């Protein structure tokens, strides 16, 4: 094996912020006072927050040191399944930082915000085209927020047809946000078992889909990395009974330019710009979860919508059937700017190529690790593949142990224990921005870990060893919550 990617080096300890502050310091340049001080209503006056005072060098070192405790896409391969941790292009950061965007007030009179309105208008068009749907709203702030928006669209649309209905079918492979979003909208989730091939069977849908069921939430490609091959048949059943088909498009990275979601019978779909469209995940956000819909759902989209009139862009509230609003303003513009930049940088060929290579990388990992790890669904995969720890069970080595050990090898672990249908799941999504060499090293590392599992399981139980902190006691954290200092 080549030199592993992971090693140890000098990094720094750093206390909590308030363990280092001292009154009389500041890292802020207080603007010059040009007006006199006014008295404040004594009844309302407070004493101000108890924050530590620090100098600029304190702040800088504090966060530089903290940053060095993180793994990130810029430091190495981050094959978190379902998260599409692709490379985040640096030019996108330049664009979103342009003062014209960054300093713009959201309520500027429209003639004074044409640039960003045009960007939103065009981005909607591009996303509509890429998904093969008919219209798009950019308002949702993340994937789950898009799902909520989608469920609200179901509700509003169905209500306009008579009754919103009360149930919704959610496959057992679905992401947790799907049923949670449905619940927020008052829909009771009905669990739908996927079949032995890891996908939905029309029969199962046929059995459960009734006149009180609003429809179905499909993820396609699904969280097993498989294409829902029966999607059209499923959609036909749902539609025939007056229901709607929602598609969780978190995995769109597998099928740009390859599948037309509109043609599959999907009525509503959300995208994750922070996955497929390369905006950085920021250690947990912000993201952006645009929702694309079929023509007849368009009137129900959130307002305001960006429209074009005589060559000028406007924000219009004039959609009387609209479901309302999910964001105070228009959503996460900063993320949209990055996605727009990405789409323009890639072009139609680039996007399709990205999907092809994302699938190629996943297929290559799957074929190379099959045998070393148990592959519960041995079928052509899309952008990710899901293994389990079954073959390591005899050695009392669990998915968690292997994930932690992978850190020592210099890789971020895959998503683990999801989807729930695969016990001890190891869900690997390499993305298209990883080179063959990196993936080969990842495969070698995974194989080395499998060998270690047989030969030296303690090594895995004690992993990680190279990180600044060893395994953390999550039970303690939950039993005696310390949520602030």
């Amino acid at each position, binding site marked *: 094996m080549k030199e592993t990617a992971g090693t140890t080096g000098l990094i720094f300890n750093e206390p909590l912020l308030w363990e280092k502050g001292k009154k009389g310091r*500041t890292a*802020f340049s*207080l603007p010059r006072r040009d007006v006199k001080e006014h008295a*404040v209503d004594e009844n*309302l006056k*407070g004493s101000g927050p108890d*924050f530590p005072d*620090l100098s600029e060098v304190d*702040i*800088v070192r504090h*966060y530089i040191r*903290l940053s*060095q*405790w*993180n793994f*990130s896409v810029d430091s190495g391969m981050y094959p978190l399944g379902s998260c599409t941790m692709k490379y985040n292009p640096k*030019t996108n950061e330049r664009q979103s*930082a342009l003062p014209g965007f960054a300093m*713009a*007030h959201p309520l*500027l009179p429209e003639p004074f*915000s044409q640039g*960003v309105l045009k960007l939103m208008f065009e981005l909607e*068009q591009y996303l509509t085209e*890429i998904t093969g749907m008919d219209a798009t709203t950019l308002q949702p*702030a993340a*994937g789950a927020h898009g799902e909520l928006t989608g469920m609200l669209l179901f509700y*509003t649309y169905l209500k306009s047809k008579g009754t919103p209905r009360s149930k919704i079918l959610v496959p057992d492979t679905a992401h*947790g946000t799907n049923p949670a979003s449905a619940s927020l909208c008052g829909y009771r989730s009905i669990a739908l078992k996927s079949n032995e091939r890891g996908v939905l069977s029309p029969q199962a849908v046929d059995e459960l889909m009734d006149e009180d069921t609003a429809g179905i939430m499909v993820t396609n490609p699904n969280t097993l990395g498989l294409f829902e091959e029966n999607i*059209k048949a499923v959609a036909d059943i749902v539609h025939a009974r007056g229901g709607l088909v929602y598609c969780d498009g978190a995995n769109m990275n597998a099928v740009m330019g*390859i599948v037309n979601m509109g*043609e599959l019978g999907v009525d509503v779909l959300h995208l994750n710009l922070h996955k497929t469209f390369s905006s950085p*995940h*920021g*250690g*947990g*956000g912000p993201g952006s979860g645009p929702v694309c819909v079929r023509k007849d759902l368009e009137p129900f989209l959130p307002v305001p919508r960006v429209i074009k009139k005589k060559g000028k862009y406007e924000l219009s509230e004039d959609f009387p059937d609209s479901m309302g*609003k999910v964001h*105070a*303003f228009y*959503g996460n*513009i900063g993320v949209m700017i990055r996605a727009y930049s990405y789409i*323009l*940088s890639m*072009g*139609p060929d680039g996007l399709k*190529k990205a999907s092809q290579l994302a699938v*190629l990388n996943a297929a*290559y990992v799957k074929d*190379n690790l099959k045998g070393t790890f148990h592959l519960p669904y041995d079928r052509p995969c899309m952008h990710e593949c899901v293994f389990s720890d079954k073959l390591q069970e005899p050695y009392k080595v669990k998915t968690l142990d292997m994930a932690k050990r992978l850190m020592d090898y210099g890789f*971020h*672990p895959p998503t683990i224990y999801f989807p729930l249908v695969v016990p001890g799941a190891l869900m690997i999504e390499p993305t298209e921005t*990883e*080179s063959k060499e990196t993936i080969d090293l990842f495969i070698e590392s995974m194989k080395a870990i499998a060998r270690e599992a047989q030969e030296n399981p303690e090594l895995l139980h004690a992993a990680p060893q190279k990180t600044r902190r*060893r395994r*953390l006691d999550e039970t*303690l954290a939950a039993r005696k919550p*310390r*949520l602030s*200092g």
Partner: protein
Amino acid sequence: MTIMRYLPHTPEDIAAMLKAVRIDSLEGLFAHIPDDCRRHEALNIPDHLTEWELNDHMDTLAGSMAVSPDYKVFMGAGSYEHYIPSAVSFLVGRSEFATAYTPYQPEVSQGTLQAIYEYQTLTSRLLGMEVANASQYDGASSLAEAMLMTIRVSKKKAVAVSRAVHPLYRRVLETYFEPTDLEIRELPYLGDGTTDLSPLKDMDDLGGVAVQSPNFFGCMENVEDIRHTLENKSALLVVCFSEPLAYGLYKTPGECGADIACGEGQSLGIPRTFGGPALGMFASKMKYVRNMPGRLVGETVDLDGKRGHVLTLSAREQHIRREKATSNICTNHSLCALAAVMYMAALGGTGFKKLAQLNYDKSEYLKSALTGAGFKLPFSQATFNEVVVEFPASFTKTYQRLLKKKMIAGLPLGDFYPELKNHYLLCATETITKADIETLVQEIKK
């Protein structure tokens, strides 16, 4: 063909990998997809731009926007112009923060985890609350989640919300409540610009009561009075905000008895960016923590007993509880929370107070300049950095004239409050100089 710089595969790599997976072409990777599911036309989006063409294009788009210092924007209304230290912008851009995922694997995410723990702590202190979560999307969704939480805690079916809460937040709340059987009752506002509490006396079936302070008119609510009014009632008191800098000067929600404090944190070191990404801040009393939405970072120890941080109490969350979760939130606004904690730390308690005072003083100067020029300020309640002013009906023309002079004279309120036709909401933060204010008022008088 041009080589795309984000795609590392050479033709040889592709050939070797296809061979390894025993497939003969890239198209072949999708052969298992039923043909009627395949897309047959190419994507109809513009051909790719080079990095340099993109720069030009984006410069043009951005260049069309009216922003300071070119324009003087006397507009707050939920989005505030504050100076952001360059050290903060620099640090937020660190690869290790920006390109990491949610810290599910704590051993390789201690940087994000400690920073968010610090954010939770400083947020708790700022709001005077016991516990703050790791963030929500924005002020509006925070408020909606807060009201849903009051319902979960109280098991009631109605909430009351002040009409002086940001009208856009209220619309989001209404949208969230629409598919439920829950009722939203509106509390009117009084002549002094604060919420009329009298209707509350007769409402015993409320799960929660929400006011915003400073409210949409910039006025401080008498939150302690509301607390008194709610004594012996089941309703939780929710204090919402869009300008948390005010708590550098005024009592905190916690001090005034809030059960939940939530709102928008954009003011704290986050560029406005046409409204997003911003920062949903969310805090509550500790006793309600298991009903809170969103992620929480907690302190713990590692195998060697060393201090570390992890995501915790996730039994509330969608990935564990699925349909029974307290919220559906997954991706939150972590990097914005990071910016906020850096900003709060950069100011420090001392700087935060001074900056709050300065904002107050600027807007007080604006107020006296406006009254000095003969305009009416309808609301008498104390404000922070925003104020409602009534102009003559002819002011719409003046507003247009000022736009030409690159001044944006606040937000017209008529669209939001029909009863406040000819009223404008003006804002003056530390970025507005005395001279700017004088120019504005002189131009208005013309």
